[in-house]
């Protein structure tokens, strides 16, 4: 295994102590006291047209500065999704519109001096709605007589299969086809053909979405916001307001979690427009109710799968057809859907006949958006359940079935080139893939051979094991770009400026370690700043498991460039003719075969104070984009205890063995996996977004929407495979999402192994389990 000085070490997060000791660091902490408070009047109806809206009475309240309705804002269609550009989501959203498309949709923006006056004003706005028949069942959305997006302005920047009059946000058909699926299936000895459902899930970052805006001395709009992608946010705000980007600055402070929830623009649109209209600072801090009802959830999906294998368990056909629910607006609709295929089909690359297709429909529910796993988790539930169903038909150990069919190092899949995120993909060979090791090691750690399939513990309780495997990506090939700038200071330390967006993941720390490794200095010589569209370089932002891989390579390149410049300047200072004769170690430049040396500190002082005509600022930069997106892999194994009288399950242990290449910071990598697993367990077992029959979200707070607590899991065991990907910074791949993918199927499979019932829709509630046992 390679040895490194700075990377592959578990140093504490650079911001950890400050945050835990309560530093003012998050958006709301930084808003000025005089900021106008912004709240929204929101729709009580799932689908309605505003006939009249009267704000006269509300405006009379003392302290109210500004009330905006659809009549007062630019009518420019945008998408709020912070993705690439041209955007792969339909442009179907206005800042405000005369149609409201879900309960909680924005009707009016109200700004005033205190929360109380704003609350009072909201009650006095008079709205006359024409209530329309909502579309709440996503399986009845296509071709429904209620058309959710009748507006003429809706469009997409490139063909997505948008068909608004039929409530289709996008579709992807007749493209991802390899071989003859129908013929191959007909020739298979065993075929599994089943339908699975996954539900919406809330990201529930602990910090609610927050934005604050002000005008600076150059009369530019400044926005501090809890965003995962400051550059996309700037672009979207510029587009929505019709303003040049040079007039907008977006600052990302510390972020209280995101998980995809902040990979889009929400209240920034409101602070921006209020501050521009009033000239005053403003802020908008969402309540938890607003976070749940009126930001984004995970896409609900219906997944039809056909798997065909011969009698020896060799997979020959793999067919997936998906219907996805994007809710009221189409953010991330096509791309989450495509990830459902692109992160699952290649995992079983032995199958020769492949097909993937489907549609994403509008409904009158909260919009779906980005959430860790991003389509892959939904498809993982279906595919990894179906693999166990196939193993049962074959009477084969499901672990063996996976080992027989999963992708291996040096292998590829035609899917990589056919299908990317939103369009064609790029061919890839797996230069690192320890999936087989992960499966073997996980099987050993959970003691599969002793425990599979199950064991009766008491008359009521059965213990069983289940498994699922997963792959994700490391950024989006040749679409994601990140950059880093290094600046040498006197005293011999460096500012590392990155557009990459640490939202609690530890990327500031990881990127500092990578830059330090590249320069050849201890990490405490690096002071990192992220991210600010005025002062840090471009980066797509924190999504698609990109930061360690994409931005990490940028930090590495910047570091290597800085090292080269330092050596050049040291050679000049030491009067050395050949740069190769300069050795840089322990923060000192030495000359080969000589006692002469200069320290980094002395060199920096010389460059800024003493070298006369040779004085200069040393700055180095690095940009990175890659045709490769090396997937991290994981094998998940769960042991559960199932009470057959109540249907309740307890997770006794969740074992994860992960191949994410080199772990730049093993502790932080481990926490990423542990945190991902617990979010996956939450989705698998009880997290569920529930609506009333007229479309009101019932699970709009933590009382009704339960996320896992400390008591909900007994043990999570995480190990990493020894792995090195040549394309990654010092061998690293990504690790942010992979942990969340497997629990749904692994737990469903464990339930099957315990009591022989197959549940094909999550969450796997005691009620469903008990009913399934009774109906067996």
């Amino acid at each position, binding site marked *: 295994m390679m040895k490194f000085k700075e990377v592959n070490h578990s140093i504490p997060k650079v911001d*950890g*102590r400050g945050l835990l*000791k*309560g530093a003012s660091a998050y958006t709301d902490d930084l808003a000025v006291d005089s900021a106008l408070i912004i709240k929204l009047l929101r729709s009580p109806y799932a689908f309605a047209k505003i006939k009249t809206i009267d704000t006269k009475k509300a405006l009379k309240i003392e302290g109210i500065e500004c009330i905006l309705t659809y009549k007062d804002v630019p009518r420019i269609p945008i998408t709020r999704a912070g993705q690439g550009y041209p955007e792969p989501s339909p442009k179907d959203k206005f800042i405000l519109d005369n149609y409201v498309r879900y309960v909680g949709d924005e009707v009016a923006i109200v700004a005033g001096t205190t929360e109380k006056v704003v609350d009072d004003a909201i009650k006095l706005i008079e709205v006359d709605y024409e209530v329309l028949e909502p579309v709440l069942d996503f399986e009845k959305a296509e071709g429904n007589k209620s058309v959710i997006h009748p507006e003429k302005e809706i469009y997409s920047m490139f063909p997505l299969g948008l068909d608004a009059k039929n409530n289709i946000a996008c579709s992807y058909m007749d493209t991802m086809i390899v071989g003859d699926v129908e013929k191959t299936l007909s020739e298979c000895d065993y075929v599994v053909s089943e339908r699975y459902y996954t539900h919406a899930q809330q990201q529930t970052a602990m*910090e609610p979405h927050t934005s604050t805006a002000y005008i600076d001395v150059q009369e530019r709009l400044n926005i501090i916001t809890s965003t995962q992608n400051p550059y996309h946010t700037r672009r979207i705000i510029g587009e929505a307001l019709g303003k040049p980007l040079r007039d907008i600055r977006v600052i990302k402070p510390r972020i209280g979690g995101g998980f995809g929830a902040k990979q889009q623009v929400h209240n920034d649109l409101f602070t921006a427009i209020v501050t521009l209209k009033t000239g005053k600072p403003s802020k908008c801090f969402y*309540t938890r109710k607003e976070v749940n009802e009126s930001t984004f959830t995970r896409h609900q999906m219906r997944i039809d799968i056909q798997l065909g294998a011969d009698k020896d368990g060799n997979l020959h056909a793999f067919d997936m057809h998906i219907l996805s629910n994007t809710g009221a607006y189409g953010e991330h609709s096509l791309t989450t859907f495509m990830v459902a295929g692109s992160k699952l089909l290649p995992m079983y690359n032995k199958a020769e006949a492949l097909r993937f297709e489907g549609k994403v429909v509008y409904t009158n529910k909260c919009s779906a958006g980005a959430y860790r796993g991003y389509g892959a988790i939904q498809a993982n539930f279906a595919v990894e359940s179906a693999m166990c169903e196939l193993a049962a038909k074959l009477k084969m150990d499901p672990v063996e079935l996976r080992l027989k069919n999963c992708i291996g190092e040096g292998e590829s899949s035609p899917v990589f080139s056919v299908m990317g995120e939103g369009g064609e993909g790029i061919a890839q060979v797996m230069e690192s893939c320890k999936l087989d090791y992960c499966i073997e090691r996980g099987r050993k750690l959970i003691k599969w051979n002793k425990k599979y399939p199950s064991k009766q513990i008491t008359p009521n309780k059965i213990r069983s094991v289940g498994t699922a495997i997963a792959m994700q990506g490391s950024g989006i090939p040749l679409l994601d770009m990140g950059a880093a700038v290094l600046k040498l200071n006197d005293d011999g330390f460096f500012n590392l400026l990155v557009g990459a967006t640490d939202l609690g993941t530890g990327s500031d720390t990881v990127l500092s370690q990578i830059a330090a490794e590249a320069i050849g200095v201890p990490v405490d010589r690096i002071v990192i700043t992220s991210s600010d569209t005025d002062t840090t370089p471009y980066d797509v932002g924190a999504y698609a498991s990109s930061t360690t891989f994409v931005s990490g390579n940028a930090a590495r390149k910047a570091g290597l460039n800085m090292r080269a410049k330092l050596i050049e300047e040291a050679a000049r200072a030491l009067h050395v003719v050949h740069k190769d004769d300069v050795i840089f170690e322990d923060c000192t430049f030495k000359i080969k075969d000589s006692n002469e040396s200069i320290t980094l500190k002395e060199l920096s002082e010389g460059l800024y104070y003493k070298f006369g005509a040779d004085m200069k600022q040393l700055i180095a930069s690095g940009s990175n984009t890659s045709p490769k997106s090396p997937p991290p892999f994981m094998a998940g194994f769960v042991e559960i205890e199932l009470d057959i009288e109540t249907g309740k399950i307890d997770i006794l242990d969740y074992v994860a063995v992960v191949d994410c290449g080199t772990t730049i910071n093993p502790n932080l990598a481990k*926490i990423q996996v*542990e945190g991902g697993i617990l979010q996956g367990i939450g989705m698998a077992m009880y997290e569920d977004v529930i609506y009333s029959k007229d479309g009101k979200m019932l699970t709009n707070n933590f009382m009704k929407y339960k996320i896992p607590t400390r008591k909900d*899991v007994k043990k999570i065991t995480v190990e990493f495979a020894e792995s090195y990907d040549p394309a990654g910074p010092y061998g690293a791949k990504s690790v942010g999402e992979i942990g969340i993918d497997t629990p749904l199927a692994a737990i469903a499979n464990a339930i099957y192994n315990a009591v022989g019932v197959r549940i094909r829709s999550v969450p796997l509630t005691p009620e469903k389990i008990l009913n399934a046992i009774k109906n067996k």
Partner: protein
Amino acid sequence: MKLKLNINNKFYNTNIDGDESLLDILRKIGFKSVKKGCDTGTCGVCSVLIDGKPTLSCQFLAARAKDVKITTVEGLGKQADEIVDLIVSEGADQCGYCGPSLVLTTYAMKKELKNPTVEKINHYLTGNLCRCSGYEGQLRGIKKYMGVK
């Protein structure tokens, strides 16, 4: 109404409305370590110590706080360091939004729990939600602080 608050052993004179929560007042005065996460007393990030007991400041009327001692993480000073370092050394601080309240509650727990076990720790801290860490890393650090193997 006028109110005199004892926060971290210092007195603060402030004006409040009768229905304002202690959380909002603490943040207004400048104690930004006290976070808002849910408005319904269910996430724990607004926890402060009232006379040494962990209390959800969003569910505590500011008007009721006139004769109590309020402690925020700023008030723990160096006493927070051991807890902070143990959590940070596991990488379990993550986004940090639940961090100050977790540190405070852990500090109070050590004073209160006589014979701590993993089960008792998890029970005591159940109300402190964290969405990033999966809790395991936090537990590794907190077990060391509590002297639990």
